[in-house]
């Protein structure tokens, strides 16, 4: 890292590469991959308290790859990714979580999922009250509370 809250150029490149391996772009669902520039910018801007762990994960990834991840062929890259996912520990889990939490708040992704592009507050949501006659069999069965002496 060049500073406490920044990743190096090499780390950013590897983050982009591994993010695309986790969530690739899809024409079928009309969504970008997690390597999309806007999603990557969101990750870098909001790393905050996760910076240290993500940097550690990327250092681990670099050791596994022996160089920039993007320069490996597809087979080698998949092998590195599998090892990283399997044995990367808490640091790898943090990196994956950072990728997913930024991906699944992107407008294009939420739109594809049919979700509204907003915070829960203040609009909230409407919930069906439901059919409370479903309780009738429970009421009919009854029961008794265990007695205490």
């Amino acid at each position, binding site marked *: 890292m060049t500073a406490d809250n920044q990743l190096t150029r090499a780390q950013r490149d590897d983050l982009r590469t591994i993010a695309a*391996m*986790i*969530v*690739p772009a*899809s024409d*079928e*669902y009309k*969504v970008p991959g997690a390597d999309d520039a806007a999603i990557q910018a969101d990750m870098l801007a*909001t790393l*905050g*308290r*996760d910076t240290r762990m993500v940097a550690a994960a990327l250092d681990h990834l670099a050791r596994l790859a022996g160089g920039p991840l993007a320069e490996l062929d597809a087979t080698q890259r998949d092998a590195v*990714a599998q090892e990283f*996912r399997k044995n990367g520990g808490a640091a790898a*889990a943090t990196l*994956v*979580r950072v990728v*997913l*939490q*930024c*991906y*699944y*708040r992107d407008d294009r992704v*939420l739109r594809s*999922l049919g*979700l509204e*592009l*907003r*915070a*829960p*507050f*203040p*609009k*909230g*949501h*409407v*919930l*069906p*009250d*439901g*059919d*409370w006659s*479903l*309780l009738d*069999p*429970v*009421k009919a*069965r*009854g*029961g*008794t*509370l*265990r*007695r*205490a*002496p």
Partner: protein
Amino acid sequence: MKDPVDVLIIGAGASGAAVAWSLAETKMHILCLEQGGWMNPAEYPSTGRDWEARFFGEWSSSPNIRGRPEDYPVNDDNSPIKVVNYNAVGGSTVMYTAHWPRLHPSDFKVKTLDGVADDWPIDYDALTPFFEENDRMMGTSGLSGDPLSPLTHPPMPQQPMGLSGAIVAKAMNKLGWHWWPSDTTVATMDYEGRARCINLGHCTPACAQGAKSSTDITYWPHAIRAGVELRTHCRVREITTDENGMASGVVYYDKDGVEQFQPAHVVIIACNGVGTPRLLLNSKSDRFPNGLANSSGLVGKNLMFHPYAQIYGYVKEPTDSNRAPPTCLWSKQWYDTDLSRGFVRGYGVQFVRGAGPVFEAVVSEQKGILPWGADHHRVFRKLNGHRLGFSAICEDLPEEHNQVTLDPVLKDSHGIPAPKIDYTISENSRRMMDHALARGREVLEMAGATDICVNSPIPWGGWHLLGTARMGTDPKRSVVNEWGRTHDVKNLFIVDGSIFVTSGGVNPTSTIQALALYIADQMKQRLANLFD
């Protein structure tokens, strides 16, 4: 030196707020010291687009992950269940699911009924009026008449069943098992200045709408209007005693980090089942070399967590996902002892409506059911918005080796020794958890769920911190007497979950607050001879 106060309460959470409000009518000078501050609902996670991500950081339920200045660290490395809490005015009621069952009458007599642990020195009937008073103050919603739960009279109707509740209800009916709409402290209509629930969904890390009851918006405004003084960002280091062995006051650090001494005639501890033993053990002196009020040696012992056995799966129909409060229905089908099941005591069940997209993605990736690569999108669309959960709250019996001690190294931001947890899940609890998982699987499969996953225990599930300063009539076997006064120090009281003798199989906050009101009532009745 500051003037002494009549009553000094440590902690402004569930029990501290209740006891402060109840004692306020005495017109005594009552001061509460709280290590956290007032919350600002405008900053709650559900107000922002990053609402889910914040639950993994500054709004984590774990104080160790949050790491706010108001939090103290907890060494829980030697426990499969990690401590979760919140430190602010309102305490952990700021960050809870608002599920609101009570202990059952039988929970107070487990020794008599089942030959395990100990009976409480009080019974359910002693708490009944205080349950009712507390429900009115906290503002509960629910449906009266559950045949397998104590009778309650919630002032507001139950939450909507929603999509998830209907799926659960149909499955439970096919199996012939008990279910009922949960009592909760979510306001389903405008109530006492609180706005009704609008289904923000992200209830646990605080409610921006103010529909979820937390004591910063329920008890505290009333208590303060009645004259109680609440001093925030004041962390108590120790309780001091005088030459007569009575509590004389507390040493605390104020909002500027300056050490202060506050004398008091009565001290009430309301710091939860981890914070309370920590404070008592940090208050050792020549007169009390093993920690304050610890002649029994039981301060910090008998920690009970409620191991959660959680199982969830994915149905074809849409569920409520993040579009509703997380809990809606409960079951008491397996609450009472049936030895044919292979364990003693039992568990309550809370059904879980679903999860938001970020949580779903993160957790499912960790579970290995959400792949990386091209198939990620197809699988995610199958999972997201289709989750249905079954969580069993298993009764944890008291065992002395499950304990809170002081960590020899770890300290909080004021240099005060932090708590250390040593805890193992008992064989009885394991069998109970396995039984619950098997029943949960039956329910989920009856509902048509696939991709079933298990968290047993829920690792960050140490919400309920109980038993570490237990109540009893025998000073050798308990820390406080039957009305909350410590056996050793006659002007020192404890009102939080640490005084539980046994844990029951339900979320404890309702009972904690009823106990706090009961103890306050006992104090008011005995004011003339409180220290006899």
